[in-house]
């Protein structure tokens, strides 16, 4: 198992290195920098713009800027925001718990809705329940998250006024959770149906085990591989900031921080956020790979 884990490390390092290159140079290609942004606001003369670029080291060769940045990154120094002048680490400390809160709640909703629906739909194939769950899952997947979010916002916050339109956890978590649970239902249903046709299931039944026991002890554990993948990817996505949903609901998480920083050409923040999101995504996938290894010994070979 340890050897299997070690084999997963080099791809992680390569991914992070590529992400750092991509993020850094893409930002430099996009027109405009912090001095231009300040100039848009109207207070900065051409001379000041040159001074600001000099102060931020933006007048140095790009390659030198990159190596400096990577050097600081390795030491855990994310730098300061050009705009708020706060350490990027501090901005993260504000935003990340919010994203974590949203992601955890959305995942909880997805599991509570998706697991039972998917299991029952798979176990009772062809039944009315199966058809209903399939249609519901399709609906959950098909309706864009942001559209669902906006409709929920207008109905619950504006029309009924039972929830705030901004800063509420319930609505964005519901919108995200429903989307993930749709995928979960479909994946789990399909896997369970697959497993139901397996020889070992027939054997288990032949041994006299009750259908519920077969489902709980044999089918479910073997059906969870794909489900774990779905959840892992969804978690990585959520921790990376559900950008649109955070924007619609004015949720001050990582997604909002990233979008605002891109708009402001706030390089240190964008670079740090992208790197942390990448690291989280990679970590989530690494976790999934390791879980595969635990749940299915064949992948360790």
């Amino acid at each position, binding site marked *: 198992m340890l050897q299997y884990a070690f084999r997963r490390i080099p791809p992680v390092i390569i991914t992070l290195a590529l992400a750092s290159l991509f993020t850094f140079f893409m930002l430099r290609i996009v*027109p405009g920098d912090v001095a*231009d942004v300040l100039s848009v606001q109207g*207070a900065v003369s051409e001379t*000041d713009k040159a*001074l600001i670029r000099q102060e931020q080291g933006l007048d140095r060769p790009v390659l030198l800027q990159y190596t400096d940045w990577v050097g600081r990154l390795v030491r855990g120094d994310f730098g300061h925001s050009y705009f708020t002048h706060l350490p990027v680490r501090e901005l993260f400390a504000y935003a990340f718990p919010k994203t974590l809160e949203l992601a955890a709640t959305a995942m909880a909703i997805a599991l509570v809705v998706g697991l039972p629906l998917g299991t029952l739909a798979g176990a009772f194939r062809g039944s009315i329940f199966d058809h209903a769950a399939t249609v519901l899952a399709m609906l959950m997947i098909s309706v864009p998250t*942001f559209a669902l979010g906006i409709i929920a916002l*207008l109905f619950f916050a504006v029309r009924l006024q039972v929830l705030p339109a901004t800063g509420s956890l319930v609505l964005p978590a519901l919108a995200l959770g429903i989307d993930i649970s749709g995928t979960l239902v479909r994946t789990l249903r399909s896997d369970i149906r697959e497993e139901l046709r397996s020889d070992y299931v027939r054997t288990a039944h032949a041994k006299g085990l009750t259908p519920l026991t077969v489902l709980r002890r044999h089918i479910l554990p073997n059906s969870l591989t794909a489900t774990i993948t779905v959840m892992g990817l969804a978690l990585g996505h959520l921790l990376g900031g559900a950008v649109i949903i955070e924007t619609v609901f004015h949720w001050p998480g990582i997604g909002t921080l990233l979008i*605002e920083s891109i708009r402001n050409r706030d390089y240190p923040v964008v670079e740090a956020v992208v790197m942390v999101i990448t690291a989280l995504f990679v970590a989530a996938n690494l976790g999934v790979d390791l879980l595969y290894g635990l749940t299915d010994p064949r992948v360790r070979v």
Partner: protein
Amino acid sequence: MDRTGTAGNYWTRRVARRGVVRAGVFGSAGLIGAALIGCGNDAKPTANNTTALAAGGSAAAAVRRGGKLLLSDIPQTQDLHRHSGTMPTPSLVADTPTAIDANGATQNFLLDGVEAPDASTYTFKFKQGVKFHNGREMTSEDVRQNFARIKATKGAWLKSVADGIDTMTMPDKNTITVKLSSPYSPMTSLISEMWLMAPESPGWDSTITTPIGTGPFVWKQWIPNDKIVLERFPDYWRKGQPYIDAIDIKNLKGDTTPALLAGDIHMTGVSRDQRKLIGSNPAITFQQEKATSWQFLSFNNRKARAPYTDIRVRQAMGYALDKSALNEFANGDTGTVADQMAPPKSFYWSDKVVDPFAKRDIAKAKQLLQAAGIAPGQLKPVMPVNSSPREPEAVAAQLKEAGIAPDLQVADDIATETRLQSYDWDIYYAGSGPRSDIALRYVRLMSDGPNPGLWGGPQDPEFDRLVKAAWTLVDGEARKAKYLEAWKIAMDKLFTIVVYHKAGTTAVRKEAGGWQTGAVANFNRIDGGVSFVQIQA
């Protein structure tokens, strides 16, 4: 604050600047949704504490104290000397020497009086007993240190004004005399944007992290991209004010209408369409701003390409514009067709200026193009467009009727700004917001003016000379005459074509009782704003 695209007031300006996707997708979806489900609900009540009676117990003098006001703004820094991209929030925490009243006139605020005999020496006499939030009395030495810090800080708001200071002396603890290197008459108006902070403010030597001002509210907490929490300053120099206990400034972007309708915020700027949609809501009233923003079609003046160097081509575009239709399209009854940077009927405006493009004349436009040797459809001016393309598209449609086919190139604000400043374009349609002094409009067209890209960076020594001459004049009428001479150059050479002026609209919930929208964007003002608000149930 100037690159406003199609929007006018200070709220919608920010929406326009930041909202390519948000304003386009979510805003539209929000509006459509609001229209579908209806918006006529009563707001959630906002808590307030007590109702106190003023002396004599008169019902008319009853003051409702307590409660929290919910506002929205997008501040980017706590350092109120550095440019924050927004004016409303600093005014809650820090006061200024002067202030702009509801009619746009400059009044003393922290000042008791100003003596400026020749526009190059200003003696400012400050009020006694004004306290900072840390309890210390403000002195003229604090004012000196504020001027000095602004002068020394790159990108500081009013740095160009502070740069002109030669010497500062303090005859007593409430008086400071400032000598400028050259006469500058807009000084008293412009220091209405100079937020005074105590030098003890943490981060004074680099970046202030907690501003200590003399304003009606104390800065308690800032959570970036979320909100700012402010609490009432009990020792505010305007005795008895403010009436409310606290303010939350939510950091909202995009369409803020749902937040207003839900009662999450108590006021926000609204566009004409948003106003129509929420117009029947009994919880919301609308107030017009007392100052206007102006909309214009600029030409690339600094690096004009042929054939846009030919005045006939510029004139053709002027004749092809239908200013009335554009104004109606964008503003309805909140806008006025115009030909000057000064708002119509204001002090610096003149009825003697003749607008050649007051009436659309397509035939004349075509004649001019023909005379310039340009065949119909041959002229394809590059037209950068930022954020909201709605109005630029209308402009392009009008120009097409004269055989001009603009090449609209849409990008986000910063990319467009970079493009503008590279002067790789031909025409640009945008707006510019209300200003505390007309000087801040004229300075934009000067050779070394800030953010010159928007107006194509004119470089005209005679224009510069006239504006600078205006600044030296203490007499208002003489100053106006000089400004108008300069404006004649701008019109004759067609630096830019003014299309209309419009007053922004603020939608105010009933909870924010007593709120009056003024001539400037500040939340706290001399004759209105938060210090006068009494939260209503």
